[in-house]
């Protein structure tokens, strides 16, 4: 007849394990710790994912560093060469201009702006040098379909017909050209838009507040899909030279986008560039989006602090459970003393009971958290099936709930939970250890 393996662990672990198993309230405590740990893990994973995605969306096609000239800048490629010479940590440099443009479309309502049924949709035309731009941003990765995938803003037919080329966003195409909901256009429908005309107007504001428009028929040579659908719908990409010509821009560029060899050097490169090019304002992409990024970080920290109280609640459950256990097991404490267990032995029996609750609760919490995090979008979809929209993409700017499973964060939560179990168990365990054995034996 073999005794259970736990029998070999010494009386402290053995008795604490038995106490844990024999009382339903202990299992309820395990459930409490499990819930707290799982909720905290789920929130941290979602917030980490959310933060990372927000960073990506916020960054959009911003390069590592943006330099804005305050006076007439030197033209490319001389300027490019100079930057690379003075700052070897720069990998690539690209010029950029941004011009407000309008897209007119037919509406059922009368437009106050145009005085007709033609509604104006204001957009931003971004002029880029494709070969340089693709080295400083993710634009090349975002192109979904193009006449010429290697050089999406170049098309022989357009050149032949002397047409200016444009990259449109998938969201713009869906809303205005296909009349479809977001994400519903098929690749074939998007491809069918290539080599078609798109009319846009470059607007000049008159003294009376109305707009004078100059309309261009652009040749669609590609469709892209960025991280931020709200930004995408308002943005067209054109060749910088063509856009300068269309908008009569004299400056060779309005911004310079800089890609670094290692983004960790951003702060020191920024300082270095500021010193070398005093007529430029220099920003990292995080400087540009600082307020928003800080708001998201603050929200994450606040949420974690608030939800840590759930784990703290688990600690109080352990405290209450073990206090009850010590009262119920008063006679056992007397027996242990009579059998020669030292006070530290009695203490560790109850301390271990609390730790078992913490260990098992945390392990189950990690498992439950992982299960939920892995299936969070399935849960979201099921909730949407019953009309509960917990993650509206119009607000959050992305379709799926983003998550990041970071073992370091999970480890911190588990260690925190175990420490909490330890300290919650310490108070009743000390009480048990200090108990007078004779009184304990006489306890009814």
């Amino acid at each position, binding site marked *: *007849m073999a*005794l259970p393996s736990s*029998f*070999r*662990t*010494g*009386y*402290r672990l*053995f*008795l604490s394990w*038995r*106490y844990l198993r*024999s009382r339903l309230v202990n299992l309820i405590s395990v459930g409490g710790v499990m819930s707290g740990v799982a909720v905290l893990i789920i929130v941290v994973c979602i917030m980490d994912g959310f933060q990372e995605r927000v960073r990506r969306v916020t960054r959009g096609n911003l390069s590592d560093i943006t330099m804005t000239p305050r006076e007439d800048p030197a033209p490319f490629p001389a300027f490019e060469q100079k930057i690379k010479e003075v700052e070897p940590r720069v990998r690539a440099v690209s010029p950029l201009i941004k011009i407000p443009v309008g897209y007119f479309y037919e509406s059922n309502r009368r437009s106050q702006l145009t005085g007709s049924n033609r509604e104006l949709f204001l957009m931003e035309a971004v002029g880029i040098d494709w070969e340089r731009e693709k080295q400083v941003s993710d634009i090349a990765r975002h192109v979904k379909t193009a006449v010429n995938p290697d050089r999406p803003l170049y098309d022989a037919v357009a050149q032949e017909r002397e047409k200016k080329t444009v990259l449109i966003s998938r969201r713009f195409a869906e809303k205005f050209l296909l009349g479809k909901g977001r994400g519903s256009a098929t690749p074939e429908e998007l491809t069918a838009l290539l080599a078609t005309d798109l009319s846009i107007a470059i607007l000049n504001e008159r003294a009376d507040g109305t707009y004078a428009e100059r309309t261009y028929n652009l040749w669609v040579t590609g469709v892209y899909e960025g991280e931020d659908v709200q930004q995408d719908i308002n943005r067209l990409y054109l060749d910088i030279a063509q856009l300068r010509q269309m908008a009569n821009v004299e400056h060779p560029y309005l911004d310079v986008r800089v890609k670094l060899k290692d983004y960790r050097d951003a702060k020191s490169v920024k300082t270095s560039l500021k010193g070398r090019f005093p007529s430029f304002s220099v920003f990292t992409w995080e400087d540009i989006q600082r307020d928003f990024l800080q708001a998201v970080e603050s929200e994450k920290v606040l949420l974690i602090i608030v939800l840590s109280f759930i784990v703290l609640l688990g600690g109080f459950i352990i405290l209450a459970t073990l206090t009850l256990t010590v009262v119920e097991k008063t*006679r*056992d404490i*007397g*027996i*242990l*003393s*009579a*059998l*020669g*267990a*030292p*006070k*530290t*032995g009695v203490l560790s029996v109850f301390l271990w009971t609390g730790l078992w609750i913490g260990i098992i609760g945390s392990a189950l919490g990690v498992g439950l958290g992982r299960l939920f995090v892995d299936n969070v979008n399935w849960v979201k979809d099921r909730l949407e099936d019953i009309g509960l929209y917990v993650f509206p993409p119009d607000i959050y700017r992305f379709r799926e709930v983003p998550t990041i499973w970071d073992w370091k964060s999970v480890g911190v939560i588990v260690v925190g939970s175990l420490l909490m179990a330890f300290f919650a168990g310490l108070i009743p365990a000390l009480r048990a250890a200090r108990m*007078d*054995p*004779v009184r304990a*034996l006489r306890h009814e």
Partner: protein
Amino acid sequence: MSDVADRPVLLSARGVTKSYKTGAGPLRVLRGVDLEVREGEILAILGTSGCGKSTLLHVLGWLDEADEGEIHFEGQNRASLPGPARAQLRNRVMGFVFQFYHLMPELTAVENVTLPAMIKHDGFGRWGKNHKQAENRAKALLALVGLQDRMEHRPRQLSGGERQRVAIARALMNEPRFLFCDEPTGNLDGRTAEDVRRLLWDLNARNKQTMVIVTHDAKLAHQADRIVYLEEGRVVHKDEVDVVEEVELG
């Protein structure tokens, strides 16, 4: 039993007093008890309820502390030992049998019996090395007290007599030199009480185990080597077994 007086004194109490705080002031339970326990004897402490018998047993067994007086075990003063050393000595040298058995309800009979050995061999890896031997001894002790078929039973599945036999087996686990029994038959019917008494006396005859038995059962006390009568916290009569008839039984 005339040779008892010649045996060395193992345990002695000198001027032991003990009182408890109550709402109505201190309650003096022991009022200067002098006592000697000799090796291998069965000493019965006889007295009425509330006379301080159990308190005296607890003080003698180092479970409780006397207010005044000295308790010596083999010449060593209790007061000179720190708490952990006293606990260790209690674990290795003393065994306790209580009126209400005091078994751990979560443990089986064999686990209850093995518990003192688990405490004895506590420490990293020590129990792992000793558990098999202890397990075998626990089973042998349960067989000795006639419970070979009840090893995996929990206390609630055992009768009163069986529980007390498990408690006796547990008290013997670490081969103690002393057995302290607090009303060991007090909660049992006549026949079962006699079985338990016979078991204790057999152990004494076989192992020369020193026993201090607190009881109000005169019949049980009469079979001891020596009886000490306790009244209102004082030893009022102490004698050898051949004058036991002179003891007034309350």
